[in-house]
């Protein structure tokens, strides 16, 4: 089921499967042919006392078959690799482009790491699954059946023995597989517990050291490891026992075939060449089924990965129709208006935003305040086109945002997120994101305005210092200033600022306030505010509470009327008074 879905998404995967199964099947036929010729040669020499010269043609044919078998083995391995590379490339490309459509709300927070893993390791796990496991499933049915047919042809009784024992193998394998899955799941849990304990202890080493308890853990780690060994061995013993039964079954049935053939040979019921042929094929008969057993885990990992990949690919994008929208007439960036906008996240029982209406006038500063969870960042997501309103509309100078090409719109907005992300690369790379065409001078000027130039110069490599995951460590304030420099670099008409909630150092606070004064002079500014200074300066304030706009107006007006805003500010001044 999952496979069919995957195949419908990735056409190249089907080619891969057909190719590997075809070559595997060819290999099976060649094995039969090889046994046939080998049996004939041995019989001729052994019973008819033929000389080397006499069997030479047959020997050469045998060599030819062996050569073909080698070619088929090479072909299936190499072809699988070629096609698998294409499959992986296709899947990754589709995932990346689909994720862009799903937008940042999909890959938020902890999910981002998991999705990244799916793109890298999940897709990688498709290769063994598609190139080995699935073909093996097909081959473990086809090849034994082929061989069985030939064995029947040569010696019906051996055919019966094989035919009777063969179904026992899948039966036992399913039994073992089920048991093994339970055991391996349990094992996996035990191992991750063990690993988790180790990680936990090492991460807490500082704490343990502070309390002088770190040496005690040596004994604990040894003890837990030993407990783990005992528990694992207890369950492995069962798993190995099942493997023993399986192995016994295959070797014993080969032995039974050999003994019964031998007995009938004595009686003269069976020609030697038929007997030898059957004996040669007996191990080949069980081989594909046993190989399937070894691919079991590969198969399981692959199914999990395929499931997740299909799930991502089949998630409906939150934003529709944006890529096809064209700018019918030039828009002058004027008023941005929310008209009765509501938004409900997928799978959420309650709307996050309800009936939001406001206007942001050109060259004015609009501040949005409210507790976390009030829906402020959803407004930012809507404005950036990461999501679209479920109810109502957002308009730019009376044009519905849905009809505006997203790419163009995003160019008009400079966004300063609450927690800016720095990409692995140089500081210059990170700044240039906002404006790839800018000159060094422009970049440095922007950094200076944002108060970032000074600290960037303290790094030995200056603007060429590597930052991000594996790069230099930056403080929260430094991060904010780099993000601010980005906003300066991007020459856009609209600034969307999400003020950091956490306290920053005094200098950064001062820099941000100063920059805001400067930026608002020739831009429309929408700020999600957490600072009283910012709010006081705003032209218009929206007070949000549980997804709705509770109050709106200027600072002075709002102070006069009783309501949430006055409560907020009063509460603030009370604490301030108490302190002084």
């Amino acid at each position: 089921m999952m496979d069919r879905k995957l195949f419908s998404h990735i056409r190249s995967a089907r080619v891969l499967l057909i190719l590997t199964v075809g070559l595997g099947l060819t290999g099976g036929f060649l094995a039969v042919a090889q046994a046939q010729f080998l049996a004939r040669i041995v019989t001729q020499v052994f019973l008819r006392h033929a000389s080397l010269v006499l069997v030479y043609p047959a020997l050469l044919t045998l060599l030819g078959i062996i050569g073909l078998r080698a070619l088929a083995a090479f072909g299936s391995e190499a072809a699988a690799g070629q096609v698998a590379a294409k499959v992986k490339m296709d899947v990754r490309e589709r995932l990346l482009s689909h994720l862009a459509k799903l937008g940042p709300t999909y890959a938020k927070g902890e999910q981002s790491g998991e999705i990244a893993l799916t793109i890298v390791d999940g897709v990688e796990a498709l290769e063994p699954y598609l190139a080995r496991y699935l073909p093996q499933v097909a081959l473990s049915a086809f090849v034994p059946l082929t061989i069985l047919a030939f064995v029947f042809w040569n010696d019906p009784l051996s055919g019966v023995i094989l035919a009777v024992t063969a179904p026992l193998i899948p039966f036992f394998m399913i039994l073992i597989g089920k048991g093994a899955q339970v055991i391996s799941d349990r094992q996996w849990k035990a191992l991750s517990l063990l690993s988790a304990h180790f990680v936990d202890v090492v991460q807490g080493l500082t704490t343990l050291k502070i309390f002088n308890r770190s040496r005690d853990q040596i004994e604990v780690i040894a003890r837990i490891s030993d407990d783990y060994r005992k528990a694992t061995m207890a369950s492995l013993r069962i798993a190995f026992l099942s493997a023993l039964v399986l192995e016994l079954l295959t070797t014993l049935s080969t032995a039974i075939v050999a003994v019964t053939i031998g007995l009938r040979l004595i009686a003269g019921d069976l020609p030697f060449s038929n007997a030898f042929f059957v004996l040669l094929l007996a191990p080949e008969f069980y081989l594909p089924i046993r190989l399937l057993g070894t691919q079991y885990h590969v198969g399981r990992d692959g199914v999990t990965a395929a499931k997740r990949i299909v799930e991502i690919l089949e998630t409906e994008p939150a934003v529709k129709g944006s890529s096809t929208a064209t700018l019918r007439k030039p828009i002058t960036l004027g008023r941005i208006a929310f008209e009765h906008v509501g938004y409900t996240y997928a799978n959420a029982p309650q709307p996050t935003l309800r009936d939001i209406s406001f206007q942001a006038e050109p060259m004015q500063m609009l501040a949005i305040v409210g507790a976390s969870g009030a829906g402020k960042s959803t407004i930012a997501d809507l404005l950036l086109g990461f999501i679209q309103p479920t109810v109502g509309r957002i308009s730019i100078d009376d044009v519905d945002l849905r009809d505006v090409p997203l790419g163009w719109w995003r160019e008009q907005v400079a966004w300063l997120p609450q927690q800016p992300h720095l990409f692995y690369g140089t500081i210059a790379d990170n700044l240039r994101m906002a404006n790839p065409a800018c000159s060094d001078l422009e970049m440095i000027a922007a950094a200076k305005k944002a108060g970032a130039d000074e600290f960037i110069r303290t790094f030995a490599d200056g603007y060429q210092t590597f930052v991000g995951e594996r790069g230099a460590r930056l403080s929260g304030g430094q991060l904010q200033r780099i993000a601010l420099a980005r906003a300066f670099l991007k020459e856009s008409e609209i600034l969307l600022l999400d003020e950091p909630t956490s306290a920053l150092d005094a200098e950064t606070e001062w820099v941000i306030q100063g920059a805001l004064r400067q930026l608002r002079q020739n831009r429309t500014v929408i700020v999600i505010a957490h600072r009283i200074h910012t709010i006081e300066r705003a032209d218009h304030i929206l007070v949000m509470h549980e997804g709705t706009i509770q109050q709106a107006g200027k600072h002075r007006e709002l102070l006069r009327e009783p309501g949430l805003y006055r409560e907020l500010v009063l509460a603030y001044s009370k604490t301030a008074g108490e302190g002084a």
Partner: protein
Amino acid sequence: MRTLLRFLRPYGWLVALSIVSGFFAVGANIGLMATSGYLIARAALRPETVLLLWVPIVGVRFFGISRAVFRYIERLASHDLTFRMLARIRVYAYERLEPLAPANLLARRTGDVVSALVADVDFLQNFFLRIVSPVIVFILALGLSYLIDAQFSVLLGVSLVISLLVAGAVVPGLTFWLGKKSGEELVTLRSEYYAIVLDLMKGMAELLAFGQYEALVARLTALQRKISRRQRFMSRLNGVSTGVLVLINHGAMWISLVIAIPLVATSKIPGYDLAVIALTALASFEAASSLPQAYQYLGQTLQAFKRVKELVGPDSLIAESGEPIGNDQAHDLVIRDLYFRYRQDEPDILKGLDLTLPFGKHVAIVGESGVGKSTILQLLLRFWEYDRGSIVFDGKELRELDASSLRACFAVVEQAPHIFQATLADNLRVASRKISQERWQQAMKISKFDTVLAQMVDGEQTLAGEWGTRLSGGEAQRLAIARALLVDAPIYLLDEPTRGLDSVTARQVLQGIEEVTRGRSLLLITHRLTGLEMMDEIFVMHDGKVVERGTHQQLLEIGGRYRSLYDRQYVEQQLDCIQPSAGAAVHS
């Protein structure tokens, strides 16, 4: 390699048992095929009575059963051995890691480093299972194959051994060698790819907002092409190697025939042995089949072990041993003109710090975040080595004291306390091995952790940490305070103890700590100017130095940095912090 083998040494008998039974399992397979061939060939000559075939029939049955049994024993022994070995390696890694924390460990992100270490240690399970054991079994099987074939003709034996060596050693070795460069490149390329994908996911909002998503995807596609090229090369290489192995395996059988047929024709060997020879040649390659894998694992395993050794390898930055010091004395602490930087390429964080903490006094260090307040604590705990200046503890230079006995003089509330994956009680008991009932209750009460415990269904037995109940910031902080108060030490070091606590609770908790630590030294590090009226002295830090000192009242009167910090703290109060009460007011 040699050091890894050392971990196997204590388990010699298990090693022997595993290898011997592994060899017997492979031997039984050869035996099964060879005796089966012998059986049917002799049977084809139609002997007078079945009794003549009694020995081969018993042989066939014996090998048919024993193979599975030997395999079973081998698996048990080798896995047991492997787990024992891993346990030893884990203890070894921890023993070496312990002195490094936190200075040599925190340079990179601990979480990643530790999980990489765990993965590497787990990977070492392949060492015996997939490398040592298959190689030795292969060598033994070589001998067996030779012995079987050589009884017919030495040439047969030699040719089989040569084919086995080519299939088991030469071809996999060559494949491994040819693919080594690509394989290594693939590892780096893939980790680079992963890093970019992770970046892409985490920074997706910004990439889309700045219109840079496509550009990064293009970079990924280019990288993917490079990866694909190498993977295709690897799969061709593996294809060739698989094909060649098939050729050698069956070719060896073919060569055996070519050698043996004239011998049969000239009656040098009996005809029925021809079947034995052909089947022996086919069956003996089983031992060679796991060797390509062994080559691959060898490289990876040695690398994993190298990484483990590298991580645990460096010597501690700090000399832990020194003059022991008792924790029941009155210790004065004096810091003079202290300079410190975390890394040589970073600027100084402490720039000539002076500070005194006479025994029994309560002292606070205040300042904005990032001025180096917490660094002082790190240095006092001997987690880092200071460069210039001196810290004199009880009249002796700090670095000359025994680190462990020094730490016993402190009870510490860390800034980012670690919550272990254990019960809350166990988390608290980290503090000390012996805790009196009285002390326990007092600590719970003062830290107000008792209210946290009261909320939990399982109370003290509630599982905490990643897989248990997640403690909120404030709850974790109270746990850390309780933990510190359980320690009986002359000096209390508190680093931002009230982080995450509301101001009322913060004040009460601080008051409680104040009272219970009277008569002992207390060093409070904070950027929050709450409850400082009780302090004997306050040091105001700025830019790595102490810029003002005095009592709360004195500092307020001076009207300097302390005063402005104090005022601004309320001016810059965040709306979010006071929202809940305001929100409630609206509803009422």
